[in-house]
């Protein structure tokens, strides 16, 4: 049994960095709680973890959590993290990004990190909007939804982040939501333990910038929507095409055993007659 408040307190920087900037009803705090529980479960010490974040609401997580942290530029967190992993493979690196951060300005880095399959854990908090800058539409804003830069609704097709990273070669892909908080920390534990590039998409409500504009109700209503529209992957696969509607699968979607980048690197070094990485 994990005592939540004690665990949280252990990993936070409560004296220096609070109060936090997240709005009332924001889901990112729930995601941060799940991440802390997941790390607690893996048994790594705080010093064995590096938390790398980009820019945006999600980027603030590296400010509040007491690990080795690197707060980087918008969209580039995975590239910074790749450097850390190459230079010190012993470290466990968790990269926290938002949907705009990871799939718009950082989309290039995301697809190539997948392809490279380097041993990092990416936590992509998807709230379907650029929250911090005032509600502009992002690559995951659903079609026809309103945003401050789409007064009559977006006309661009959104990414399905899990499908995108699966297609690009990530070893482990999972999705959970702020409603499924316990599942989220279980997914994150698995992702951290997984060798290779792991991606966990956490659907997280933004009642202020996304929900309000699109009449999604309160934060609780938005979480209930996650509950009502999510299915396990096997159940989701049984839905006939054309009847999927807004439903989406949660849980582990991809779990492959493939050599990661550093393993392949090590093999090529040996092949070339070298004796170390």
């Amino acid at each position, binding site marked *: 049994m994990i005592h939540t408040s004690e665990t949280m307190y252990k990993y936070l920087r409560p004296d220096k960095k609070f109060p936090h900037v997240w709005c009332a009803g924001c889901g990112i705090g729930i995601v941060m709680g799940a991440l802390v529980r997941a790390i607690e479960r893996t048994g790594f010490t705080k010093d064995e973890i590096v938390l790398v974040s980009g*820019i945006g609401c999600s980027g603030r997580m590296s400010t509040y959590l007491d690990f080795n942290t690197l*707060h980087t*530029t918008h*969209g580039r967190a995975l590239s910074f993290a790749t450097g850390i992993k190459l230079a010190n493979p012993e470290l466990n690196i968790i990269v926290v990004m938002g949907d705009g951060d990871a799939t*718009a*300005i950082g989309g290039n880095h995301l697809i190539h990190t997948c392809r490279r399959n380097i041993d990092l854990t990416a936590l992509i908090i998807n709230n379907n909007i650029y929250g911090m800058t*005032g509600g*502009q539409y992002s690559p995951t804003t659903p079609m026809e939804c309103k945003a*401050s830069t789409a*007064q009559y609704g977006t006309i661009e097709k959104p990414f399905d982040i899990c499908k995108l990273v699966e297609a690009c070669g990530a070893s482990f892909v999972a999705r959970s939501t702020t409603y499924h908080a316990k599942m989220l920390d279980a997914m994150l534990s698995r992702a951290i333990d997984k060798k290779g590039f792991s991606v966990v998409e956490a659907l997280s409500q933004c009642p202020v910038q996304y929900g309000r504009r699109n009449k999604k109700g309160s934060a609780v209503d938005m979480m209930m929507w996650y509950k009502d529209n999510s299915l396990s992957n096997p159940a989701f696969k049984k839905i006939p095409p054309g009847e999927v509607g807004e439903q989406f699968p949660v849980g582990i979607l991809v779990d492959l055993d493939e050599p990661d980048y550093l393993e392949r690197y090590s093999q090529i070094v040996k092949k070339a007659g070298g004796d170390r990485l």
Partner: protein
Amino acid sequence: MSGKMTVVEGSYAVAHSVKVCRPNVISAYPITPQTHIVEDLSQFMADGKIPNCEYINVESEFSALSTLVGASATGARTYSSTSSQGLELMHEVLFNASGMRLPIVMTVVNRAVSAPISIWNDHQDSISQRDTGWIQLYAENIQEMSDMTAQSFKIAEDKDVMLPAMVCMDGFILSHVFEPVILLEQELTDEFLPTYDPEHVLDTRNPLSFGTFADPSTYTEFRYLQQKGMDVALGKIEKAAEDFKTIFGRYYGGLIEPYMAEDAEILLMAMGSVVGTIKDVIDKARSQGIKVGLIKVRTFRPFPVEVIRSAVSNAAIVVTLDKNISIGLNEGALFTEVKSCLYNSDINVPVMGFMLGHGGRDIPMSTIQMIIDKAAQAIKSGIKVESEYADLRGELL
């Protein structure tokens, strides 16, 4: 002449100016503190108030400016707005735009550059882009910013200039503050700003190439001609300010604006919103009999060398105030440029540089007063420190 005053946010005033300049393509990516401008433009678009215009919210600043390079090459009047990291990310494309001689206009809402992360104001972002071949103008207040935006289209699109222009306003201090402003009237703006009619465009009936390979036998001449465009721009900036005055009745100087400078012994030089504070301090100092004045630099690129030489020639000392630093030289850009334009001239005025207001640090009147006191001391006993921070917190070091 125009006249009706309304109280609006700085960002709104800029968005309104862009609207009445009748852009054809607007492309932007969210970044604080620029965002309100493009949000207001997005609202105008949704309300059908910008005819013949396309608006796209792209996936990065790199794409935002690249989109405009494409659009501008087809002959569209193009606009974007950004800040800080967004502008730094555009760096490569800034050279593309100027090298292809595309008169894109961009508002830079000045913000400090990370690391450490700061959303607050200084000029490090635009100053870092000094050598990219863009015209750089700096506004003191919202009215000037609003008017300068229209002027910048006219300057950039002049057939003898054809260079992109960034119009810089201080983040939050100007972008988020509400002030009484005369919003540009559509009719007067149409009279002031002609339709954009470029000589060279991408057109299937008359195919052209933009940005092609230039081997060592031709590359230098492209750069030389960009500089020629900048030289011509000096006069066009002054002309645009005069034309604007004729139609709208407002004038802020052309390349520079002198304030109580004529008989000044201590001559301060600065850019942007800090100028307002400096003017207040000068008024106070003048009432005490201290001969202090100011040169507001409106145009940083092209740098108005001749105008500055003649403006400072009678001063006992020139003091620059910079919201940026060249790390490794320990000088702000204005300091470096002013010194450089006085060297090899027959003007022998000492120059002192102060850096201040970095990362949004407030610049109270007392800081300006302290700078004036130090300058007065330097007239008597010589300059002890050439360039330093005026507001360093020694207790943190």
